[in-house]
């Protein structure tokens, strides 16, 4: 073993340190001649990324003095955005889900867009419920870029085999059909196919509650979902799962999402959004499926709507340029466009697969409910699943969830 002289070791480390310092000055920042604005979003799939890049390049051609730097945040999107907002290092323009919007609007970190909207820009063309999600106290903070509602996906082959001719129109019909569609062909006690795939999250079940007059929060934004209306709506879900045993959660059958379960043929019907269409076509090409509007609950049409907007950071340096980008975008949606004119123009209403989604926009409940919704969501999901698997009654679960949600909301005030 050699004896390493002290000097030699130290000089080696000194050299390495020098190397680090040199490397780090290999920056990438060059002073832009024009304006550079940063745009952040998450990405749904690599295809979307390409489409996005195309749109951005077209924008840059039309606005030669503006360059757009697009950064995707690959995970924990909201955590990263919140951290960067706190540190004053957030992007100029970024995606914001309607669900998360109230919190950011309240904390005043978004730039109101009212002053940028001029006569040429037709705000009324936007689907009103979707636009409203990004408005607070008469100010608009974001323009919804696209949306999705939930619609009923059903397996055509399974329907044929069970002798069902058309998609169920009411929830009762759905339950009956579910029973017919739940089969255990080889009689080994494990069902290969369930009638209905269930997503036991508040984000998907909310419309069941509103169908009976239930709601999530009261005027003071406290949790107020423990009402007979909510109970009735959710009870339907629980009964189908526990009594009829004709529905299943994805984890029960070894899938991670409803779309996956449907694609694998383990559920004959699911309620999913437009994101499922390309997924199913790409991943399960042999599957024959169709879509229909969500069956009526308690005689009323209902579904959920999810929308995402582009918002502007209040601390953005080049606000006019950022606005140009937002305005440009509002014309190009990637799921379903939020402008009624564009929706009609692109023929979505006539496309059989997308039509139920488009129609749903009129009566959908938007997935948003004030800034306390994230807290309510956690507590609700936590307890609802426990009621679903039979650990406690639905009544107890909802009461507990509301109480613990409110405790947290109160102490945070």
């Amino acid at each position, binding site marked *: 073993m050699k004896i390493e002289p002290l000097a030699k070791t130290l000089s080696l480390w000194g050299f390495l340190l020098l190397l680090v310092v040199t490397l780090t000055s290999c920056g990438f920042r060059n002073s832009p001649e024009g304006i550079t604005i940063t745009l952040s979003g998450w990405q749904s799939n690599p295809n979307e990324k390409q489409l996005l890049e195309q749109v951005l390049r077209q924008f840059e051609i039309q606005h030669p003095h503006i360059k757009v730097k697009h950064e995707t945040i690959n995970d924990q999107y*909201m*955590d990263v955005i*919140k951290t960067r*907002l*706190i540190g004053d290092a957030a992007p100029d323009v970024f995606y914001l889900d309607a669900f998360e919007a109230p*919190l*950011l609007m309240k*904390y*005043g*970190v978004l730039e109101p867009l009212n002053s940028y909207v001029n006569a040429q820009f037709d705000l009324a063309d936007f689907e009103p419920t979707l636009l409203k999600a990004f408005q607070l106290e008469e100010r608009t903070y974001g323009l919804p870029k696209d949306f999705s509602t939930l619609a009923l996906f059903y397996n055509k082959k399974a329907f044929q085999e069970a002798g069902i001719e058309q998609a169920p129109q009411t929830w009762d019909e759905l339950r009956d059909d579910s029973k017919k569609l739940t089969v255990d062909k080889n009689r080994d006690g494990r069902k290969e196919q369930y009638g209905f795939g269930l997503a036991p999250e508040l984000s998907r079940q909310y419309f069941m509650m509103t169908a009976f007059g239930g709601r999530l929060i009261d005027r003071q934004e406290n949790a107020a979902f423990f009402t007979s209306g909510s109970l009735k709506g959710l009870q339907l879900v629980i009964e189908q799962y526990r009594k009829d045993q004709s529905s299943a*959660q994805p*984890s*029960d*059958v*070894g899938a*991670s999402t409803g779309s996956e379960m449907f694609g694998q043929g383990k559920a004959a019907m699911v309620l999913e959004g437009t994101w499922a269409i390309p997924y199913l076509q790409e991943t399960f090409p042999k599957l024959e499926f169709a879509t229909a509007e969500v069956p009526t609950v308690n005689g009323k049409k209902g579904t959920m709507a999810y929308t995402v907007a582009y918002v502007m950071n209040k601390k953005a340096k080049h606000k006019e340029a950022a606005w140009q980008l937002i305005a440009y975008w509002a014309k190009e949606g990637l799921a379903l466009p939020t402008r009624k004119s564009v929706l009609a123009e692109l023929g979505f209403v006539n496309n059989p697969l997308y039509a139920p989604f488009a129609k749903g926009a009129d009566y959908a409940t938007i997935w948003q409910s004030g800034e306390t919704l*994230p*807290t309510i969501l*956690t507590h609700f*999901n*936590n*307890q609802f*699943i*426990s009621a679903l*698997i039979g*650990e*406690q009654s639905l009544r107890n679960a909802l009461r507990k969830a509301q109480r*613990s949600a409110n*405790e*947290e909301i109160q*102490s*945070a005030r």
Partner: protein
Amino acid sequence: MRVVWKKQGVREAIAGYSFMAPTIIVMGTFVVLPITYALFLAFNKVRILGELSYRFIGFKNFIRMASDERVLIALKNTAEYVTIVVPIQTILALLLALILNSKIKGKNIFRIVFFLPTVTSSAVLTLIFMWIYNSNGLLNNFLAFLGLPTYNWLGDPAVALKSIMLMNIWSTAPFYMVIYLAALQDIPESLYEAATIDGANPFDQFVSITLPLLKPVTFFIVVMGIIGTFQLFDQSYIFSAGSGGPNNSTLTVVLLIYQYAFKSLDMGYAAALALMLAGVIMIVTLVQRYFFKEEN
């Protein structure tokens, strides 16, 4: 040359601090400073997004903890997790290290295979495990094959935490096994040879030579085990999609801290919880050290 003993104290101090210098500077800035900030936050009602504001509220955050049901549940879950995982993990690590240090064939292959779970990032491991624990997955198929009952490992609250425990023991034990292996190298063969000559059997040698000499390293492994298990976050987050459910069964203290810090942006309370957790870990470590009496 003779060493001048008078100046020894000063010399030692200078040597000590020069050795510690990089640590003090880097950790001081990037670790101690943020923790001090968190300490400060714990005693305030903080608004950190948008307009920054602090309002001093003394111990209110800590008092709130006592009546917060979810804190108690999280502590209970975490405690249960710690008491089961740490001993099993430590013993398994020691066992594997001893076996793989002895004269058996195929040592190197085993060492590499056993180490696979540790080399993989916890995110990837969790993904792999979610597949194994799948209702239709490897584990249930295996159990069904043996005629044993199958469970919904991911969805059933009674079993969910145990699934995470199993996965963690399996993936962390190799880490400690490697450390034990390194420590075992430092025990001179001559000690064992002398003992054999004196007529001691392998078990006696283990108890009177190996174990005592492994004490400092065992202390390290147990403390790190306690810290690691108390701070469990990744797996419970991924398993429960961030909710800690079903019915709070996978709620750990750090998951709770994360929810308060990032979901509700209630930084003051989250900081207070973090300090409370650090306090609990410290107490447990001290108690454990008392029973362990370090030897020098």
